[in-house]
């Protein structure tokens, strides 16, 4: 069975400080990992996917298969980063398969 664990329910950091949202996964095959974000009063939307290896809004995430982790990082947090962040997994090559989500981390950026 596949599982996604986000150990922090709430993470509060000051503006300008580095941010790291943790995500660990359990999956027997080859996974694809995603970060989805939900800003206040907006819909859930894709932030980034590991296969793209890109930086979105200053965020990056590296898939570490040895540690089965996909932590989301940003060197300097901004107030507009405050949101709910969900890590999600599906099987590699799974096309449009259903995603397995973690419980989410509420990120608060304090001024």
């Amino acid at each position, binding site marked *: 069975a596949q599982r996604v664990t986000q150990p922090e329910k709430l993470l509060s950091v000051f503006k300008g400080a580095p941010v790291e949202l943790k995500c660990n996964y359990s999956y027997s095959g080859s996974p694809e990992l995603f970060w989805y974000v939900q800003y206040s009063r907006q819909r859930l*939307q894709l932030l980034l996917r590991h296969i793209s290896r890109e930086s979105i809004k200053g965020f990056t995430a590296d898939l570490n298969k040895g540690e089965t982790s996909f932590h989301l990082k940003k060197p300097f947090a901004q107030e507009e980063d405050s949101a709910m962040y969900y890590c999600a997994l599906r099987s590699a090559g799974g096309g449009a398969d259903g995603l397995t989500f973690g419980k989410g981390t509420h990120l608060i950026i304090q001024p």
Partner: protein
Amino acid sequence: DAGVTQSPTHLIKTRGQQVTLRCSPKSGHDTVSWYQQALGQGPQFIFQYYEEEERQRGNFPDRFSGHQFPNYSSELNVNALLLGDSALYLCASSSLGRLTGELFFGEGSRLTVL
């Protein structure tokens, strides 16, 4: 493009009743997935429809059923409602031909079972 639209936005039912939720996918999308999000939890995959057939299903009982219409819109039906079915039900659309994994979500239908 209005994106993914869902109706109704809120509804209240009592135990044992049946409910139907509706979803219209983003323009150009042919695949609809349904997720259940309980309070304080992440979305949980219910099932996915493509070409009017259930393509994949998560760990949900048969009380949860669905349908996809020729115009790609979809319905989620839940029979014999339980208190535990109270949740936000999210519809997400995608294009099976574009294997990016990006889902476009609706705003959800919040179901309360009393």
